[in-house]
């Protein structure tokens, strides 16, 4: 029983893949869902919609074809679990064009395939196409990254030099509510590559990476609000806001490090993790217990950390009920590496927490291997015991 729980669940996608996102947006449903997008130049790309059946330990898959191009990034809607946005590239006139579209998983197929999970990919070549909802494109610009606002009302997308905020409250009729651009001086050297909404401050802040730097934007004025220079030379790969501490954010990049920042004091970072031996491609806070952090790197490893010192959760001093527990907690309080998931053989470009299970995480390596891991039990119990709720 314990072994079943602890053992990772491996799922293979037949193409190379970079894009992974956790699906949320179904209230009162604790099925864990993930979306994987493939990246293939030659073949028709696919979207794998995966549902994890916890009881059976099975992963139900539904495959949809994504004919628009190879998928680099994905973002799922926080309010509608069938909607998601992809960033995809295709070639037009021997130039790479990168676009963004919001898709919807067809209604009927969802129920049908949910009932018959044994559909074999080899027998049924033609997967159902996705239903396109709307494009989020600006003429003559390549969209690099896309991100939904946490309440689903707005979408941020970035090109190499600009930020576009789309208002999507009206279904299927997006409109650009505001745009911002980095100054020409820095745009000549570095490009924007990644954006994250700040879940705090009434979501009026967006953090973007600009080469080795990080720029924060105030969306009301579309002006830079903070900047961290040379956070990860030569390139920052990912940003994540602490879901509970509004000024804390975490970054990672090509200097093989993960750094923690307080945006009020950007000249020095709070902490550095140096456990990866190659570029760190993603770093994510657990939505429920922000001391849990998962990072993935092109050294093929996914690492789970417990950074209690920067967590919003109390430091154990609150419940002084049992002496024995307190002692163990004292030991536990240190920041530490919980475990290394080394089942991947290839560079892991993305690792994500499940949106509705605090202890489940998925990681996707370039060779198309998706692995679902769980937080080790003893760690889980320690966190639960300390948690006042």
């Amino acid at each position, binding site marked *: 029983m314990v072994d079943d729980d602890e053992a990772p669940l491996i799922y*293979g996608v*037949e*193409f*190379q893949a970079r894009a992974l996102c956790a699906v949320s947006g179904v209230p009162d449903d604790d099925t864990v869902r993930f979306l994987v997008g493939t990246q293939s*130049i*030659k*073949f*028709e790309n*696919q979207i794998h919609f995966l549902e994890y059946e916890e009881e059976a330990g099975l992963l139900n898959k539904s495959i949809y074809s994504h004919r628009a191009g190879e998928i680099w990034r994905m973002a799922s809607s926080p309010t509608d679990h069938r909607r998601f946005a992809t960033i995809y*590239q295709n*070639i037009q006139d*021997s*130039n*790479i064009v990168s676009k963004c579209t919001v898709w919807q998983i067809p209604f009927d197929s969802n129920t049908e395939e949910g009932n018959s999970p044994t559909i074999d*990919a*080899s027998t049924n*070549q033609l*997967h159902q196409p996705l239903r396109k909802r709307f494009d989020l494109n600006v003429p003559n610009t390549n969209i690099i990254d896309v991100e939904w606002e946490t309440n689903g009302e707005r979408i941020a997308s970035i090109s190499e030099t600009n930020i576009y905020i789309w208002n999507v409250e009206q279904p299927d009729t997006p409109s650009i509510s505001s745009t911002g651009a980095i100054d020409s001086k820095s745009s000549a050297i570095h490009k924007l590559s990644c954006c994250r909404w700040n879940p705090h401050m009434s979501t009026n802040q967006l953090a973007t990476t600009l080469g080795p730097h990080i720029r924060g934007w105030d969306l009301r004025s579309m002006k830079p609000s903070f900047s961290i220079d*040379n956070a990860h*030379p*030569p390139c920052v790969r990912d940003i994540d806001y602490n879901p509970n501490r509004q000024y804390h954010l975490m970054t990672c990049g090509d200097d093989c490090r993960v*750094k923690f920042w307080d945006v009020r004091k950007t*000249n*020095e*970072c*709070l*902490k*550095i993790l*140096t456990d990866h*031996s*190659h*570029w760190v491609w993603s770093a994510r806070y657990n939505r429920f217990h922000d001391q849990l952090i998962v990072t993935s790197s*092109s*050294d*093929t490893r996914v690492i789970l950390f417990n950074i209690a010192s920067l967590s919003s959760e109390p430091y154990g001093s609150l419940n002084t009920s049992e002496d024995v527990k307190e002692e163990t907690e004292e030991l536990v309080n240190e920041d530490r590496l919980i475990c290394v998931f*080394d089942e991947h*053989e*290839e*560079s892991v470009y993305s690792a994500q927490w499940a949106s509705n299970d605090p202890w489940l995480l998925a990681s996707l390596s*370039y*060779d*198309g291997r998706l692995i679902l891991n769980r937080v080790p039990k003893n760690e889980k119990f320690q966190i639960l015991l300390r948690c006042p709720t």
Partner: protein
Amino acid sequence: MDSSRANNFPSTYDPTNIDSPGFDPETYVTKLLRESRLTSLIEKEQLLTKQIKTLDNEMQTLVYENYNKFISATDTIRQMKKDFKTMEDEMKRLMSTMSSVNTNNDQIHQKLDKSRGEIRKLTSIHLLLHKLQYLFQLPTKLKEYADDNQYELAVNTYTKASKALQKYEHIPSFNHIQQSCTETMNVIRDELKSRFDQQQTASSDTVKLLLQLGESSDYLAKQYLHQNRPRLEQLLESMKQQLITAENQSNAGSTNPLSQQMHPMDILEFIDTSYNSYIKSLHEFVESYDMLFIRHSSTISSSPSIEDETKERCKYYLEEYLLECYSAYVEFIRNLFQSKFYGQEDETELYVRAIDRFLRRSSNDIYKYLFTQNAIEKIRLMLDSFLTFAIECRLKFYHANLDRHFHEQILELRKSLTMVPPATNEQTSFDKQQQQQPQQTQINLTTFVDKMLKQLTNDIKYTFQNLSTFLNGTEMIGNTGKKNVFTRQFAVNHVWNGFFLTLLNRLIAYFEHEYTTASSCSATVRHEQSSPPILLLILSKLILNFDSSSIPYLCTVFEEKFNLIIENNQRNESQKGGGNSFSLDRSKLTAIQKQFNVIAKHLLKQYICSQGYTLSQMLRKSIETRDWLNTIEPRHVRSVMKRIVEDLTQIDKQVMMLYNDHQSSSALGSMSSSYGRYHHRSNLTGSVGGGGGGGGRSSDGGRRTIIMPRSSALDRATSGGPGSSGGSTGNLQLNFHKVFNEKLDIFIDLQFQKTSILSSIIKLLLKTYLECIRLKTFSRYGLQQVQVDINYLYNYLWSFVNNDDRFITNLLEEIVSSTAMRCLDPVLMEASVITVICEGN
């Protein structure tokens, strides 16, 4: 035996022998009758009768002679009796005359006795009168003395009289006298006291007088001690002043050569003089105190117990005082040893002798004046702690010295490194001038390391030597106990723990802090290393050499100097006591050595990272800035690749200078060995790739292999429909291939070898290449360009890692495969063309 005795026996106790004592007449006769004939019997009878007759005659003459003698004896006795009677009569007469003499004598005595008694009475009365007169005169006399300031006389007379006065207190007139006397004496006492109190330096006379006047010795002793304090303090103060001036002089000495000539005393001399002036005067004072309060017996009549008590108290005060004085002095000496001028004394021998001298003198003197065990113990403790303090001062001094030297060296190294422009600096263009630089650096790098290592080792060795003089010079320091114990303690606590291990730890901390980012969990962001990579390389080698050669050498030096044996473990605990050489635990050292190793590895990693970073940056820019979709057919290897190979050659040379592989004695050997490996490798890829396009296609007889994408990758790229079985088997093959490839870990068992270092750098470089490729999309010519570049790299890279080029092949294949998969139109270039292009450059 028995028979012989039986034969003998009858001869002596023969009853038949007439002369024998056991003669039996009857047996004799019967024998005669039985054995002899008649004639012989008759003869025998005649003989016998004749013999009997002669015997009778002899007997008669004997009896007669003896009778005569008896008669003369009785005559003499009678005569004696008569003489004794006359003597008795004369004795009786003597007795009677003696008794008459006695009676006469008695009579005379009785007559004279009366007059003698009268005479005695008269003389006593006379004396009494004299005394009374003296007493009556006393008040006026005392007043006179007091007026004349002859306090001594006054006190002496008063003390003489005071007893009598006390005795006759009850008589009114005497009482009056006593009162007036005490009045004057009080005046005197007050006068003396005020004088005593006012005096800056107490004279012992005054104190003596006051004591005689019965002033409380407690108060006096305290006051006396107290009053002497400023004098001693003044001495100390003047010495301190001297010290300060000496220090100032030494400070000014560097600027002003004139003052150098008035060279202040050296430390030994200083200690001598200070000791002479201070302790001697202290001891003089103690001597006088001793005379006053302890050795003299109090004149004031008091019970011996009280007297003893006060004496004890005085002793106590003295001891307290002495302790205070000594501690003040020791404090001063401490300052002296700590002072800039004297503490920095270069000559250890002088320093040691100074310590020795001080300890010897003080320990000799102190025991003279201290009484209780407690105080001696305290002083001893003080001296002991001083000794350790002095040693620690010295150790600190050495530490500072070594640190300074070391930092100077590192600064020098940095300077000389910046003077020689680093050949691998990232943005410098590669011109002829720099081609020659390696020659220069080539000589330098190893010499840098050797020089620094030598200097450091020598410094430590020299320090050991200096510290060992502590043992030679300090036979007397042994007040801690036996010399052996001190030696051991000194060697273990101070030299080993206090100096050597601390030094090593400091070095570790320094390196950790300065050069590694391992400790970068600290909150501040450390920006990219300011130290040039060569420095890191040199330092890592330095640490490694220091660890491997210097530490063992220094250990042997240490063992020799201090007669200790560094043991591997604790098992010799029991041996420690016995034997003339002591053992020391090595575990701490080994832990430190381990740390050294770790640090060296860290530095090396740092070096690899920074070099790999520089190269990767170059590569990355070249890939990112290029439009791979719209390139022309490749005709050349891209210049970046050449640049990278050139830089790697530089790095290779650098590293080679410091880290030689054991087997790479000659480039030739590695060349020949690599041929064999080539064949092996081509076989391997042939089998794994399933004989696809990758294998042993070669232009000139298998000497060189062309890196081609794995057939599986190519399959996927060229053939097959969407999501088909081809795709999935391709995936399978791809994964299958990976099973046999080790996972790439850049720093996995990094060794202190050139090959290992370079392969790590190359791994970093190629990994970057791979990741960058995966972010791009390629046209046919883009792919071919990558092919050319990769093969060019391959032709050179293997030479850097003569040991193990498998991982390079793997990575390069991976890169080409990835490129092929990211290619819109994957048409490979002919292997022969690749070869031509690569060689054409």
